[in-house]
């Protein structure tokens, strides 16, 4: 398109054409607006992670999982004395956990005691 044609339409070459309509003149620098939310997000995620981690550790420690000794490697020959001493604690624990021992009988309290007026009063 030649300059003659522009002049015919009434537009001048010197008039600046706005690049974008409706944009504010002062733009906020984009770098700062990205860093702050990212930092907040990372911090929150870190905190939540720590909380969940500590909670799970506590919970894991609370459940009374019976820790059994690691089995010996299958290549090592096991002696009779060794197996005896190895299973002895388990067997003792079984015998001690006797449910028939009844550690918690109901208290021997009298349910029938009353304070009634004596007869013939």
């Amino acid at each position: 398109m030649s300059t003659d044609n522009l002049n015919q339409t009434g537009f001048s070459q010197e008039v600046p054409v706005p690049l974008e309509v409706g944009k504010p003149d002062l733009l906020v620098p984009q770098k700062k607006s990205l860093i702050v939310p990212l930092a907040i997000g990372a911090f929150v995620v870190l905190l939540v992670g720590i909380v969940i981690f500590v909670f799970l550790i506590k919970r894991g420690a609370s459940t009374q999982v019976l820790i059994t000794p690691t089995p010996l490697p299958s290549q090592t020959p096991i002696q009779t004395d060794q197996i005896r001493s190895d299973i002895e604690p388990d067997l003792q624990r079984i015998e001690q956990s006797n449910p028939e021992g009844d550690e918690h009988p109901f208290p021997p309290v009298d349910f029938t005691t009353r304070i009634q007026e004596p007869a013939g009063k």
Partner: protein
Amino acid sequence: MIRPFALLSRVSLAILLCFLVLNTGVVYAVNPNIAPLKDRYRQLLDLYRTQSDALSLSLTQYKNLKTLASQEEAVHDMRDFLLTRDDVVITHLSILEAVLSDRTMVNPLWSASSSARIDADLKDLQDHRSRSDVAVDRIKADTEALWFIGKQKQLSSTADRAVCLIAIGHTQEAIDALQTVKKKIDLWIDTGVMSETQRVEKQRGSDELGRTIDNAQSILSGALIQYERQSQSGSATLMYPQLRSIVFSSYASVLRGVEFAKELSQ
């Protein structure tokens, strides 16, 4: 508009608060101090016996003398008796609840349900204790004594249920431990220094041990099914002692397994 750092501090504070609340709950739930409760129970039971004897004497005196002074004495002793008896039962139920929460149970839902029932009974007993504390005349003291008579069935059932669950937990732990023993013995049979004849003989013994464990687990599983059925029906007053005897027979099978294991390791 909330500034980013203000928002950040609020979020952090909320998370820390949640953490503290959750953490406190867990520590309380899994670390009940059972030993001090047991000590307190023994002391209270001694005190109860002493007060029971004193009450028996003052009631006899009241019955014979029929005087106002003897009545006041009997009411005073009755009040002490009611308070201590409540304390004894409250402490007993608290021990059961502590043991239930302290152990890894076969079904956590069952122990939770049993604990809820204990909590309800504990609240009733605390209320009763408060009423007994102000029962300063004969009629009020007798009313509270009557309340306790009516509560006997429920309290016994709550305790029986918890004890039954604890027995089930004990037996399951014993079965699991025996399984571990069998694995160790099997490993020994496979790799141990012994003649081939001995190995075959030990293997037969181990098979027998396995059948014993299966039998114990099968009996216990039957008890668990019955427990669940009875718990759901809600009319489980007399079945807990019966269930416990089934659990005991499962444990008897475990003990036979223990003897097998001892023989095998000779």
